[in-house]
Each structure stands twice: as structure tokens, then as C-alpha cells.
């Protein structure tokens, strides 16, 4: 079997971060988080554990909401969504997320789409996973130019949710609510601490020798390359096809 692709390591890491959730919501254009959620669902099913529900926003097939686009937020407010993913044009060391733009608001020099539901969901979904593949100092900044959603809140502010982890193409960070900061948990294969420090515009805790992000077992990999990729191709056909092609190209090299 071909060794795990970098994206497969991300998908398996997401499945691990989601362990224990009953219901996870995924954005319409988030194939890697969706794949992670689908992998967890498949793993739980094969273990005979409690089922994992996945809501894919904007998808007609995987949409089991029937009350319009307000239902996701209501559902989160009711405590029925355990995990969600957020990206961000900028993310800073306090877990603040900027989805709006760079420069002096409102006349941003670079304008991104906008905050979507982040200014609410970040407060009420217990396990928010910050996911951004691009790991550069322009994304991971010291201080965001606009707070779409803050990493932490002052005491007394109603908040049942917040950031749990930050996953990039280079490593995995956990978020410490008390310290309002990140800690590097592991470095993905092929990357190292120095590289991550240089690519990150904020300071973070870390071990002197951070561990490596675990690579998936052959069993998990075959579940991912089989059933999960099949499921994924229904909603994200281009992404799934691309992953299949990469795997086919690699196969001869590995064997």
C-alpha cells in the first residue's frame, strides 16, 4: 500500500480530533474536514460505537435540515452541534479569527468574503477546529486586522464553545483557553519545529523536541481509500477524483 499522503494525514488527524462527537457540521467547500468526519463515522460504525451524524452545509444530499439556513445556528445554540471547522484569512496567537479583510476596515485593501456564522458559532460549538492548510506568516499573524470571532472571552460572557485545535499543512496545535494561546502538539512528517516557527507570526508553547504527527495504520488507510473516498466523491467529486489520481500516480513508485 502507498504510504499516507500529506492530505491523508490531515484527514486522519481530523478524525482523531473529532473522536467522541455525536454531530459535526462541515462547510460546503471543506472536503478535508468532511473526509475526516466521514472517516470517524466509518471507524465508529465498524467498532459498533454510537453513530456520528454529519451535516454538510449547502449540500442537498447531506442536508438533513428542513428549516432553512437558520437551522444550523439554532441547532448549535441548542447544543446539538459538537464540532465545527473554521478557516480564516488571518488567525492570531490568541485564537482570534479574521474572515473579513486586511487593512483599515471598512476600506480593506484585501477583502475576503466575510464572517459568515463565525461570530456566533465560535461561541457555542464546544469543539471548533481551526483548519488552514496554508501555513505562512501572512495567515498566522501576531494580531488579526479584524476580529470576526475572538479566541477567548472575558469572564461573564456566555460562551460554551471555542477553539480546540489548529491544524495546518505543517503541524497540529492545541489551544489553551486559560493562557489564550496555542501549543504545538505535533509536527507532520517532513516538517520541523524551526520551519514552523519561521512560518508562524505568533509565539506558541512547544516541547523542546515536538513529537511527530502519527501516520495512519494500514487498516485506517484502506477504510479511507475505500469507503470514505466513495462517500466523499458524492459531495466533493473533484476533490475525490484528484485524491484518487494522486494515489494512482504514487502507487507504482511505492510498490
Amino acid at each position: 500500500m502507498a504510504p499516507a499522503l500529506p492530505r491523508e494525514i490531515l484527514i486522519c488527524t481530523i478524525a482523531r480530533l473529532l473522536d467522541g462527537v455525536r454531530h459535526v457540521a462541515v462547510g460546503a467547500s471543506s472536503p478535508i474536514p468532511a473526509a475526516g468526519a466521514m472517516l470517524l463515522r466509518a471507524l465508529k460504525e465498524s467498532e459498533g460505537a454510537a453513530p456520528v451524524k454529519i451535516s454538510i452545509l449547502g449540500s442537498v444530499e447531506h442536508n438533513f435540515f428542513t428549516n432553512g439556513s437558520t437551522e444550523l445556528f439554532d441547532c448549535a445554540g441548542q447544543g446539538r452541534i459538537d464540532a465545527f471547522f473554521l478557516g480564516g484569512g488571518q488567525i492570531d496567537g490568541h485564537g482570534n479569527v479574521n474572515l473579513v479583510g486586511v487593512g483599515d476596515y471598512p476600506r480593506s485593501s484585501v477583502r475576503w468574503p466575510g464572517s459568515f456564522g463565525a461570530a456566533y458559532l465560535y461561541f457555542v460549538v464546544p469543539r471548533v477546529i481551526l483548519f488552514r492548510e496554508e501555513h505562512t506568516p501572512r495567515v498566522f499573524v501576531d494580531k488579526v486586522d479584524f476580529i470576526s470571532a475572538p479566541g477567548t472571552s472575558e469572564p461573564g460572557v456566555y460562551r460554551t464553545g471555542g477553539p480546540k485545535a489548529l491544524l495546518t499543512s505543517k503541524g497540529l496545535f492545541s489551544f489553551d483557553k486559560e493562557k489564550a494561546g496555542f501549543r504545538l502538539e505535533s509536527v507532520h512528517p517532513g516538517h520541523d519545529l524551526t520551519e514552523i516557527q519561521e512560518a508562524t507570526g505568533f509565539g506558541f508553547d512547544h516541547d523542546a523536541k515536538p513529537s511527530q504527527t502519527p501516520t495512519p495504520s494500514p487498516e485506517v488507510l484502506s477504510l479511507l481509500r475505500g469507503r470514505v473516498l466513495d462517500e466523499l466523491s458524492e459531495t466533493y467529486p473533484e476533490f475525490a477524483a484528484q485524491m484518487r489520481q494522486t494515489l494512482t500516480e504514487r502507487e507504482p513508485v511505492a510498490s
Partner: protein
Amino acid sequence: MSDLRTMARLVESGMRVALPVDYAGVSMAMTRPLIERGAGNLDLVCVPTGGLQVDMLIGAGLVRSVETSAMSLGEAGGAPRFNQAIKDGTILIRDATCPAIHAGLLAAQKGSPFVPMRGLIGTDVLKNRADWKVIDNPFEETADPIVLIPAIKPDVAIFHVPLADRHGNVWIGRRRELAAMAYASAMTLVTAERIVDESLLTDEITAAGTLPALYVTQVAEARHGARPYGLWGEYPADTQELLRYAREARTAEGFSAYMQTSAEAA
């Protein structure tokens, strides 16, 4: 039944106009009649995000302000005329977050001046919204700040649905934000793929997904009225066309040329 131009005439300068999100049933068929009509200084409310239609109305110079939780062309990237207008400062942007827009419409639906909403405290979204207020939750003994979102009462809501009947009832299925828009708005203009004779309210199964005529000002037939967006259960989005727009509308000239050629093609 009405036609698109007759409906567009109901939109007047300075009106607050509610428009739905990409996948919920955008009445793209009304975009050109609105531009032809030329009523400007519009305050758009995107429910809860905006895309191609909003970008075109901005490009045509009809927009004074946009209240939205996001603006993009989805896979085709950023909304070019919107982004340019932001840079130039030619439109007022009221950045929101999805549930806040739903909350404002809900307040109007309920005839209430506001509804409260969790979250938001400490965001720059809140900081830039002087029209929102923070109070101390009176049901808690200790300090518990909570945001109040004022009612959003559009003058007109405009959207597209698969089906309507001759009585003015329109089938919205599970896209209930369309009902919320209509409840909150003084007028509601609807385009529909098909218009049938028999009342959608006669059968309990179709009635469940129907917005009653009571809330609908006018309905007009428009085949493929959401294109290049898709319509649920009917047809998918035409991504190539969205990409073409995204490419061509990067400049004001390109936008004009695009609108010109696609008007001739139509």
C-alpha cells in the same frame, strides 16, 4: 400573474431589498429588469450572504449599502464589483454574521423591535454595528452581556422558486428563510419555474412547503430563473458561467461588456 418588468417597477429608489443566499433560490431573472428599471440608492440585505446578483446590482451603480454576512461567487472566488466598491468606499458595508440577519428578520416576523442573540461580544462585527445594542440579561443576577439585534423590515423581498399557483401561493420547500424574508417584508416579488392552476394549499403534503399568497405581492413565470445559479431539485449551478463573470467583471469596463453581451445572448 405578472411579468418581470411590471414587478421591477414596484422597486423604488432608496428601498431596502432582501435577497436570498446563492443556493436558496436567487431570482437572477429579476436582475436585468431591476437594472433596466434603474431604481438606485438601494439598501441590500443578503439573507444571509450575497453573490452574483448583489455584485451585478453594485456594478450597475444601484446600491447604497449592503448588509451581509459574506459576499462571494463561491467556487468562482471573490465578488469583483463588491470588492472594488469596498476598496473605493463607494458603498456602505454593514458586516453581519448569518444568525444576526436571521434574527433581525425574525424580530420583524414577530412584530418585535428586536431579538437577543448570543455570541458577538468582543468581535469587530459588533464594534462596527452602532445599530445593535448590548444589554445586561435581566434574567441573570450576575453580569451577563447579550446583544440585541433590531428588526430588519425590508421594503421588498425578491426570490425564485420551483413552483407557484395561480392564487399566488409559492412552494419554497425546506428553504424556509424565503418565508422569513416574506414575513418580514412589506412586499414580496417571486419568480417561479412553473405556475400551476391548482392551489398548493389543497394538498397537505405540498401545503407544508408553501408560502401563502397572503405574503406574496406578485408572481411571474421565469424558466431557469435562477441561472447561472442552480435551483434545488431542478438544475445545478453553471460554474463555468460564474467563472466567466468573475474573470470579466474584474474591471468596470469588463463588467459592462459582460452585461452587454449576455443581454444580447438572452
